[in-house]
């Protein structure tokens, strides 16, 4: 095989993107655990270690740029690099959303609406990311379509959860004894919960993006992009 060094760099890029995917998934797990157990130490770790993900992102971005500038990739190689370039952006955003979970953990003083299954939604979204990265690794286009379909389910879960919270908030009866501080605290708690649900829904969107770019990479098919 010709261009051995180039092929080696392509293989390494694939490995590094998969590694970044693993780091991001681990960070999501930590964020969800911190949120569930109100573990501020773990939350701090999630927040501070976001810098690692950012560094990984920048290194891989540089590698993609170098490969394009120096190796002039074409055809399948070009699609692989272009797709990877986009996928690392999505992974970096998932890392940011995991960081948000750490921040919400530190801001929360109590559980509001414990009936809302944040952990279930989080696990669902995380599994989509895991499967999207497996699809990328295995170049599994069937899995790409399947992940896209699953996003509708996640959206419905999030919409139900948000609707439940908003409806309940509207129906909450405030008495004369309710202080302004209590009202502000309630609103802050509800806003945080709604933001958490929104963030988890976005994790699913990023998983779909990974699947969409994988489909493009494998089959030059942009059916799932937008």
């Amino acid at each position, binding site marked *: 095989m010709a261009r051995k060094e180039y092929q080696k760099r392509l293989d390494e890029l694939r490995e590094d993107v998969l590694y970044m995917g693993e780091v991001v998934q681990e960070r999501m797990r930590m964020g969800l655990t911190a949120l569930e157990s109100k573990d501020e130490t773990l939350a701090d770790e999630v927040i501070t270690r976001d810098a690692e993900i950012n560094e990984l992102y920048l290194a891989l971005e540089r590698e993609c740029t170098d490969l394009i500038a120096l190796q002039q990739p*074409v055809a399948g190689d070009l699609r692989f690099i272009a797709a990877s370039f986009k996928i690392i952006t999505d992974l970096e955003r998932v890392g940011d959303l995991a960081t948000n979970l750490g921040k919400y953990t530190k801001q929360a003083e109590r559980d509001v609406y414990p009936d809302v299954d944040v952990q279930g939604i989080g696990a669902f979204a995380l599994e989509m990311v895991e499967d999207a990265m497996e699809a990328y690794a295995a170049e599994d286009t069937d899995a790409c379509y399947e992940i896209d379909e699953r996003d509708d389910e996640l959206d419905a879960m999030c919409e139900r959860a948000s609707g439940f919270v908003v409806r309940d908030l509207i129906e909450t009866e405030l008495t004369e004894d309710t202080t302004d501080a209590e009202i502000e605290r309630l609103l802050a708690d509800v806003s945080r919960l709604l933001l958490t649900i929104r963030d988890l829904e976005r994790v699913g969107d990023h998983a779909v993006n990974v699947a969409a770019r994988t489909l493009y990479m494998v089959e030059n098919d942009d059916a799932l992009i937008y």
Partner: protein
Amino acid sequence: MSDDTSMNETPTIETHTEAKSTDDRSPASEADADVAGMDDQSIGEETVIEARDLSVFYGDERALQPVNVEIPDRQVTAIIGPSGCGKSTFLRSINRMNDMIDVARVDGELLFRDTNVYGEAVDPVALRRAIGMVFQKPNPFPKSIYDNVAYGLRIQGKDDDLDEQVESALRRAALWDEVSDRLGESALDMSGGQQQRLCIARAIAPDPEVILMDEPASALDPVATSQIEDLIEELARDYTVVIVTHNMQQAARISDKTMVFLTGGELVEFGDTSRIFENPDNQRVEDYITGKFG
């Protein structure tokens, strides 16, 4: 030395009547066209050159497998492939340059504007006036810049308004501004890039319809190369350009269509350049352009 030196006063090639009409294509050649991955996009574009089961032999050895392809008007068609794959053989078969090789033999048809250029009535010298050629190494005549461009025009007796025609050709070859004040100087004193643009000016002076280029920038530095590439894109507004290049990035940059020949003289794929370089149909083409073999 350029074949222009052998020009005579033979008139046009439009005398041949034996060529099949485009509706007369045999089922076999259609099948071959499918194998070559002909793009649907080529349908509707005016075809200038068409190969129908065109094979070239050197003695007993087949240098070109049967080629079926339609090259569109006023576009740049690049021919790429590894060394010895037949790309220059195909290029040279378009204006019968292979005639100069004693052992070369051609089967099939090569139609230029629906006329088989290998028909008995076709004069190869006149053909080469309509289908000019630029070679890898600049080959100006040891004459003045002016005379290099005027040479073919004089031979054809087109010497009315010669100054105007020379200036026009030099302008079209993007050389006029650099040489307008030294037209009497020897062409051999020019830089390599200028010499190559002079050869292009010489090729376009007789107003051909097609310009064949055989690795025209491979002997030039990057600046001269980019000037030639800019020029090729300009020329494609008025001429059909067919270019052989070893530089795949050059093919990707400047061509509208790409033909990929692979080992054994086989045309493996032909289509829009963007598609060939983003998503080729053929795995061997993918392997070649990504550097996995060749």
